[in-house]
C-alpha cells in the first residue's frame, strides 16, 4: 500500500521526493489543489470514498498519515 501511495504522490507532483521524512504540507509539496487530486486518485485506486471530514491537512502530512487514512477506510 505504501508503494502505491508513493507512486500516486509522485504522479501528482513529480518534482518532489516523497520518500523524505518531511511534512508534505509545510514543505509545500502538496497544496489544496493537489490534495483534491490525491483524494480522487486514492478513491479510484483503492475503490473507497474518503470521508469529506477527513480531507484535512493532518491526514496528508506524510506517507504514513495517508496510509493511516486508507486503513481507516478498510484498505489493507
Amino acid at each position, binding site marked *: 500500500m505504501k508503494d502505491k501511495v508513493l507512486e500516486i504522490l509522485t504522479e501528482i507532483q513529480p*518534482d*518532489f521526493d516523497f520518500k523524505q521524512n518531511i511534512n508534505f504540507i509545510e514543505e509545500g*509539496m502538496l497544496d489544496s*489543489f493537489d490534495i483534491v487530486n490525491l483524494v480522487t486518485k486514492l*478513491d479510484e485506486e483503492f475503490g473507497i470514498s474518503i470521508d*469529506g471530514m477527513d480531507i484535512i491537512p493532518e491526514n496528508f502530512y506524510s506517507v504514513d498519515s495517508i496510509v493511516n487514512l486508507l486503513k481507516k477506510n478498510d484498505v489493507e
Partner: protein
Amino acid sequence: MKKVSKYDEILEGIKSIKDFREGYFTNFFFSQEQIELYISEDILYKLDNLNGVIFYFKKTTDFINLYFCASSLKNLKKATKFLSNNYSDKIVLDIVGTDKMIEPIRNIFLDNGFKFYTSFTRMSRGEYTIDEVSDINLCIATEDDTNPIYELLYNYFDPLSEQLPLMPELSNWIRNNRVIIYREKTNILGFVIFDLIGLKSYLRYWFVSPEYRDRKIGSLLLRKFFKICEGTKKQIFWVIDTNYNAIKRYKHYGFMEEPMHDNILIKKEK
C-alpha cells in the same frame, strides 16, 4: 442561497457529495485559512439543496465567483441548468485542470449561458541559482504600502480573471514579507507578490506601471523574487495562454509550460 458560517460546513458538504459514491468533481481548491477569511468577511454563500451538487458563491461588489462540488457530471449538468435559470447575477467561473479534465465541465457551463472569457496556462521550473540582486529602490513592502498596492492591483489587473486579493489577504502577504516593491521617492513603480511555502514558491502578481516599463524594473523585481526563493524545488505561476511575449520571456528564465490550464467562463447578468 445561504451564508456559510463555519469551515466545518464545507467539510460536511464534501462528505455529503462523496456519500453519493459516484465521483467527485470540483473547482473549490481554497485552503482552510482562505475559506475562514471569506466566512469572516461574510462573502461566502452556498446553494446545497441540489441533488449531488453544492454551489459556493464568493461575492464581490460587481460579480460572483462560482465554485462547485459535484458527485457526477450528470448531476452538475442538472444543477447548472437550475442555476442558470434561477440566478441573474454576473457569475465568473474558473475550471482548473488538464484539457481532458476541463472539457466536459466547460461544455456543461457553455450549454447553460456561460461564455468563454480567457484561459491561463501554468508554468513552472525546478531548482536554480541566481546572483545577488541589488538596487537601492528595491525593498520589501511595509504596512504603509498596503493601500497604494491595493489601488494598483484594482486599477491595472482584471478582477474577472485574476482573482484579486481582499485587503486582509494583501495585508497578510505584506506582514509575511511576501511583497517586493520598486520605489522611487514615495512612488511605487512596480511590485511582485508571491507565496513561499517550504520547497515551493508561487508568483501571484507581477506589475510595473506602464510609463516605467522600458526601465527593466520588471526584470529587477523578478530576479529579486527568484533570489528570495532560491533553494525552492518548484516555482509556479499562471500566464494568459495568448500572452506569447510573456511566455517567451518566462521561457528565457527556464520556465516550461505545464499541461495545466485555468479556463475562465462568465455568465453576464440578465
